[in-house]
């Protein structure tokens, strides 16, 4: 029973990190955006506003959770959970550092596929939440969210295919190892810039964050599929968004920024963990920065962009990469 | 643990449930889902036998079944949507006429 115990413990730790990360990510975002908009951001609760997340959490927990009378109660209830679970279980395959115990499912050789599979089922939360609310805005928001996610999943998958082609493995550990030849140029962001940009854009769309936050476009849909949600259920949706954000950052780090690699990371798990954290934070801040900078897409343009621009680019990239590998161009395996 | 019999048994049960679903439900979408269940149960049996004999062929057949299932669903659901637009119904018993 030892392995089961180990995995359980790891899962609990991951859950806690996810919840805590979510909480403090909101704070980081608010403060960062505040700075970008020449204001200060939350600074009243605790030193530098550090207790603000606690206060928010407490508020949401004690708030009344309203369920619409015509809603489908059961699904209305489980939809937020369905939304959070995929966000959390992505972490299972991410190698946080140079140590087996920093990785939940240490070295499954289908890590990339796993990530894609989890993304593909993460649409359920939005769809079911929107539908069960029995509200037009919510339903449309749910459908929009899932259509958007499905559309961009393809381009996301194609960008990862290029990565897998380069690394010659679908295991995330192997991909990190592959990017660790001793210098920064080993990072795939330099050898697969197209894939990296593609991944960044599609990840943003998967997260349904600005500039792709049409799911909750206030002017059109009020709050999208979350319209009828309140209290702790709302908090769960919110949490799923931020946890996914963290997961995406971690994935980008893993796939394109060399993961935990860095000077001395090979010998020290602590250093590797720190490198990973720094890279991930940079990615997170980039996401927030994007939100503060870019306006929102129009919905039809969003779909057209996904299908008519990103997908062909992804295909072309895969083709060119495969060609370069077959031709044994130096630097391409 | 016997590696094949329980899985095949489960596969048979699921298949039968799928069959009954196909025959008893009148909603086209429900019938479709029952068919998916049948396909899936067959897949399970294939994988079980693949594991039993240590050969990949069973898994590859499952792979192709999935591809076919995907096409079937794409076309089938498109049909259902089209039919719904004309008939305002997804009840297969309302589709007993050749002419639209």
């Amino acid at each position, binding site marked *: 029973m030892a392995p089961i115990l180990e995995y359980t413990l790891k899962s609990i730790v991951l859950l806690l990190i996810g919840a805590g990360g979510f909480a403090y990510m909101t704070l980081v975002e608010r403060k960062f955006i505040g700075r970008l908009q020449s204001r200060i951001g939350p600074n009243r609760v605790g030193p530098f506003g550090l207790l603000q997340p606690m206060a928010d959490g407490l508020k949401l927990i004690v708030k009344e959770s309203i369920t619409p009378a015509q809603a489908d109660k059961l*699904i209305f209830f489980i939809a937020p959970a369905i939304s959070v679970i995929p966000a959390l279980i992505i972490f299972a395959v991410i190698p946080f550092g140079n140590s087996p115990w920093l990785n939940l499912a240490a070295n499954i050789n289908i890590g990339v596929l796993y990530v894609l599979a989890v993304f593909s089922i993460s649409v359920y939360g939005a769809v079911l939440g929107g539908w069960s609310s029995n509200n037009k805005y919510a339903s449309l928001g749910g459908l929009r969210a899932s259509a958007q996610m499905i559309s961009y999943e393809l381009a996301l998958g194609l960008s990862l295919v290029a990565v897998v082609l380069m690394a010659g493995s679908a295991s995330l550990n192997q991909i990190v190892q592959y990017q660790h030849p001793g210098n920064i140029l080993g990072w795939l962001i330099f050898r697969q810039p197209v894939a990296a940009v593609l991944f960044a854009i599609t990840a943003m769309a998967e997260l349904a964050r600005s500039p792709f936050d049409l799911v909750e476009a206030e002017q059109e849909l009020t709050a999208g599929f979350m319209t009828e949600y309140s209290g702790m259920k709302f908090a769960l949706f919110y949490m799923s968004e931020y946890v996914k954000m963290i997961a995406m950052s971690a994935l980008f780090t893993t796939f394109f920024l060399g993961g935990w690699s860095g000077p001395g990371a090979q010998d020290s798990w602590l250093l590797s963990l720190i490198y990973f954290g720094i890279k991930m934070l940079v990615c997170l801040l980039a996401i927030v920065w994007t939100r503060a900078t870019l306006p929102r897409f129009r919905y039809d343009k969003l779909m057209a962009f996904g299908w008519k621009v990103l997908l062909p680019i992804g295909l072309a990239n895969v083709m060119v990469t495969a060609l370069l590998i077959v031709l044994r161009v130096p630097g391409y395996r | 643990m016997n590696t094949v019999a329980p899985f095949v048994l489960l596969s048979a049960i699921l298949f039968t*449930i*799928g069959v009954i679903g196909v025959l008893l439900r009148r909603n086209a*979408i429900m019938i479709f889902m029952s068919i998916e269940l049948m396909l899936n149960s067959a*897949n399970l049996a294939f994988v079980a036998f693949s594991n039993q*004999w*240590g050969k*990949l062929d069973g898994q590859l057949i499952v792979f192709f079944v999935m591809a076919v299932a995907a096409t079937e669903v794409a076309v089938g659901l498109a049909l259902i949507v089209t039919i719904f637009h004309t008939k305002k119904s997804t009840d297969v018993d309302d589709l007993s006429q050749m002419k639209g």
Partner: protein
Amino acid sequence: MTPELLSFIILAIISIAAAIGMITSRNAVYAALFLILNFGTVAVMYLMLNAPFLAIIQVSVYAGAIMVLFLFVIMLLGAERLNERETRPVMRWHRPLAIVLGAFLLALALYVLLTRLGQSTASVNVFGAGPLEIGLQLFGPYLLPFEVASVLLLVAMIGAVVLTREK
């Protein structure tokens, strides 16, 4: 009772329950969710059967694509509330006959299982079934079916587009 058998039994019960729930559900969305649950349990069984690749594909294709499509259609058509009163006298004998035939089919399967597979042994050899092995098979002996399948997908895509095009 080994842990594997225990987990299998639990999974099997969930699976069967989900399947029965699916076919008896009065609400198409619930039926779809039951089916997703069933697919999930089957995916786990693939893992138990040394087929991790298929397990992942099962999740992403069936749960992630096919069932999402089902949910979409159900929600788009607003067809989730199923009113299936039997209206045709012709079909009155239909339900019992279907159940009897289904039971008979199951009985046949059980008979074969008990007489043929009871004595079968465990896995002959351990083998890998990751993306690499599957890929080698697909682009090796199964190249033609693979290409045919890709053409099939293309045709289905065109068909679906044509069928649902706005006139």
